[in-house]
């Protein structure tokens, strides 16, 4: 079986399990809504307008929802020693990484697809002319979050404090893509010219390529038993 095909099989297996339970998806969406509400109630009424706050809230919400989603990524395999089964399968560790990453990014994007409309409603954002731009930034940022996230989730699950360690390990790596994505979103929502947005998207893409490649290269060392 080729690496690509094996990765698709692993991703399909994870997404099928998720589809049957939908616990991770539902929890992440509820969590995202609660983050939105926290921001609304934490701001000073009349002090900062919701429209000004919107891009910041969007990225904080998506970053935290991603961590909640990734926390369960390998816990599934830890139960009943399913990870041993995957490692015994005649597929390369790179295929396992790509499969888990594909499943994670798909799930994160589904959570985003459910959470972004709620952000549009709660924060009075007019998305019609800009939805494509915000969506493109969300895809690029999700790749930046989930690349190192998949690697760290595989390591954190082997420790006694998996749920606690993943945010501590991942957040320093989430902040650069979050910053680039947030800057791009501010400019997209402010109808800035393409030249002002392009640089931030390039940085985001550069970050994605660097850390996704590195995570894929290092993953076999994490799985080595």
């Amino acid at each position, binding site marked *: 079986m080729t690496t690509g095909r094996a990765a698709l099989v692993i991703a399909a297996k994870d997404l099928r399990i998720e589809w049957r339970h939908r616990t991770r998806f539902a929890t992440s969406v509820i969590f995202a809504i609660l983050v939105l509400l926290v921001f609304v109630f934490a701001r000073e009424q009349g002090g900062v307008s919701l429209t000004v706050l919107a891009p910041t809230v969007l990225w904080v919400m998506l970053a935290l929802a991603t961590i909640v989603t990734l926390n369960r990524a390998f816990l599934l395999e830890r139960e009943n020693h399913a990870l041993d089964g995957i490692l015994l399968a005649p597929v390369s560790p790179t295929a396992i990484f790509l499969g888990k990453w594909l499943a994670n990014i798909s799930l994160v994007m589904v959570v985003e697809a459910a959470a972004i409309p709620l952000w549009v409603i709660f924060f009075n954002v007019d998305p019609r002319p800009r939805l494509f731009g915000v969506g493109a930034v969300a895809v690029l940022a999700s790749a930046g979050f989930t690349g*190192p996230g998949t*690697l760290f989730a595989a*390591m*954190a699950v*082997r*420790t*006694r*404090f998996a749920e606690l*360690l993943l945010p*501590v*390990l991942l*957040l*320093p*790596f989430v*902040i*650069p893509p979050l910053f680039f994505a947030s800057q791009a979103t501010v400019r997209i929502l402010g109808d800035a010219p393409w030249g002002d947005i392009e640089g931030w998207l390039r*940085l985001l893409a550069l*970050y994605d390529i*660097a*850390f996704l490649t*590195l*995570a894929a290269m*290092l993953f076999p*060392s*994490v799985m*080595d038993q």
Partner: protein
Amino acid sequence: MIPEPAAIDRIIRRGRATMLAGLVAVAGIYVLALRFTPAEQHQGLAFKILYVHAPAAWAMEMAFVLVGVTGVLYLWLGDARLDVFAEASATVGMVFGSVLLTTGPIWGRTIWGAWWAWDPRLTFTLLLYLMFAGYFALRSALRDPVERARFGAVIGIMGTILVPFIHLTVYLFNSQHPLPVLGRPPCPPGGNPNCQPSLPWVLLKPLLLSFGAFTLLYVGFVTTRYGIGLRRVAREAADAG
């Protein structure tokens, strides 16, 4: 292969001697910087904190880069001594990082009027520092020494790749952080008013010497920590066997 106890003791003794030489060199640099170096034209006496801040940044980044380099070598060769070195370098990097993140705000308060101005380079340094705090959290949560070494190597490599981003940010973003004083092209005569001139030799000399003193201090600290780490690994191996 862990060295014999007598060899480990020799490493620790050499480390302590180098550390002592480094501390004497650092003390000498401060006497030179505070007593025999003139105050900078615009920043006055506050500028002298540069002789702690910049070499601490150098030592921290060198320490973290070496964690990444030894991480790569560990994943390749699987030698436990490389992991002991990486842990020692990360510990020393955290010490220099603490110095950097303490002196930065003190300098910033005097020059920018704020303890923390969210300057990209300081912020990314804080990120790197927190990432290495995560490195120690991960290590302490793992019981198996081989797994601890492998995962530590992975985090170390990932963190090292963040280092170029720290340097890139100062050029890519609208930073308040002064540009590097070494290797900067000279300002055109009567030209750009925003051009920051390179440091005059009288101010540059103590800075270059402080880089040397901090490097010596780094070598001393790491050698000592490396020896102590080897002693711990030897004791663990003896207990297990």
